[in-house]
């Protein structure tokens, strides 16, 4: 949480809203908080790459241009704060669909904007970390599965136990200066080729 506060003023903020009382109040408060802020309206084709956090109006209309713009946005996902006028189910499901990290409700008051920004950023950072961790876990699980498969192949062909099978893989990896996963993959590939060969 402290990290979010620490780097708050490094955030580039954009506001996608009509320049009415809500739009102005929001722009002024973000400026008071001390973040560089720009206003866009109507929804532009694309956002500048530097934007980190986006306040955007979300309503019950289909908002295809907003979705198109967000898809076109850079690969690192934006931190999104939805501005909503109605708390009805269609608006709230639109908020979820767009993947907002926090909400401010209209009429926008100065108090609450900072909390929304901090919570959105915190939640966004968590999500990014979870995604990264998840990706890492998937890769690791995948490798583990590969090494296991290779071990079984060796055990079947050579009548050895799994400790011995693993030590063969490890020795091979060390002598070829590669990873156990690479060796496991080669064993699996070779086994597949040999099996096809036999069945011909």
């Amino acid at each position: 949480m402290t990290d979010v506060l620490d780097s708050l003023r490094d955030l580039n903020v954009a506001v996608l809203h009509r320049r009415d009382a809500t739009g102005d109040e929001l722009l002024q408060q973000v400026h008071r908080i001390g973040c560089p802020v720009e206003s866009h309206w109507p929804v532009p084709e694309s956002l500048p790459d530097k934007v980190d956090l986006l306040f955007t109006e979300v309503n019950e209309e289909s908002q295809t241009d907003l979705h198109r713009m967000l898809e076109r946005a850079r690969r690192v996902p934006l931190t999104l704060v939805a501005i909503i006028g109605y708390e009805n189910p269609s608006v709230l499901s639109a908020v979820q669909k767009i993947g907002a990290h926090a909400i401010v409700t209209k009429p926008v008051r100065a108090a609450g904007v900072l909390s929304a920004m901090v919570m959105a950023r915190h939640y966004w950072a968590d999500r990014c970390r979870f995604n990264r961790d998840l990706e890492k876990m998937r890769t690791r699980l995948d490798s583990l599965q590969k090494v296991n498969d290779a071990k079984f192949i060796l055990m079947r062909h050579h009548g050895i136990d799994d400790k011995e099978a693993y030590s063969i893989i490890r020795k091979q990896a060390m002598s070829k200066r590669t990873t156990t996963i690479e060796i496991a993959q080669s064993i699996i590939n070779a086994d597949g080729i040999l099996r096809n060969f036999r069945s011909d």
Partner: protein
Amino acid sequence: MINKGPWRVGVLFSTSGVTSIIEKSQLKGAMLAIDEINAAGGVRGRPIEPVCYNPNSVVARYGELAEQLIREDRIDVIFGCYMSSSRKEVLPIVERRNALFFYPTLYEGFEYSPNVMYGGAIPNQNSVPLGNHLMETYGRRIYFVGSDYVYPRESNRVMRHVIRQGGGEVLGEEYLPLRTTTATFKDVVARIMEAKPDAIFSTVVGQGCINFYRAYYEAGGRGMERPIASLTTNEAEIEQIGPEASAGHITAAPYFRNLESAANRRFLASYTEKYGSTADVTSCGEAAYSQMHLFAIALEETGEMDADALRASLQGTSFDAPQGTISVDPENNHTYLHALIARVDEKGEFVIAHKVRQSIKPDPYLVYPALNDWKFRTQKVVSS
């Protein structure tokens, strides 16, 4: 029909209870300004008439009385409050009823309301200059003592950051209830004496502040050797603590009674004429005085008590205050203020030792102030 009656304003300062010492000085500041404005012919020929209530330092009473002022007395402009917790009571009421609320007290920042005019210093205007000064003059090992509410905790967060940035160390951090007796402070003081810091940073407010300084003195703590530095200990508290126990201690504030300037001499002469003495003149009292004058300047322009019109007029308005020229920052309704650092001498008088060259722009949402910011550098004040 042209209304020729007085302009009525609400005033909410406690004349009894834990924070009454400081709030009485705020009340006096506001009343003095009203007298001056009325003596000079009022605003557009009509006098300002205060409607004062005493919330008795009870937090919830500030909200109730603000409601009463607006609903029953039909008043749209209110001056008052010392503690942040009492301001938080008044805030939703003035917002709901679109009244204008003048808050002449230092506080912890992180707030903006279109219905509040903030007249006191926020951390970038007082904590940073004080932190700089302490570490340059006394050393880097600091002990924190505060009253247990939002202001001390937030101002300690800022001070902790300033001290760490300067390579210093926070030796201890303690929070005590608002009503703490000299006896209870004995334990705290014993721990301080044990830790041997270079200075103590105190955000103990109200009666507790007086008890703390006395307990420190009784335990052998001497300001001339190891000072207590504060943002809240004003002339009024020093007066009560007494010259022996307060000698050597330090305070940072936008204003001190002993400031040498023509505007301050005029202010003190006017104060003496009304109250007979200047013993209880404080920076919060000066803020209340200056905010009342700022209000009168704006009202002269708008000619109506409407909050939106007054706010628009106040933003950017400046006033030749006792501390020097101050002005309302149109970006955030806080005030450009000066920063002075003063030390109490053997006679119990603040002597201004350092000051920041220009008034400092308020930055209410500053999370981590930069210690090396040139704006916060203090310069020595040569006594005449």
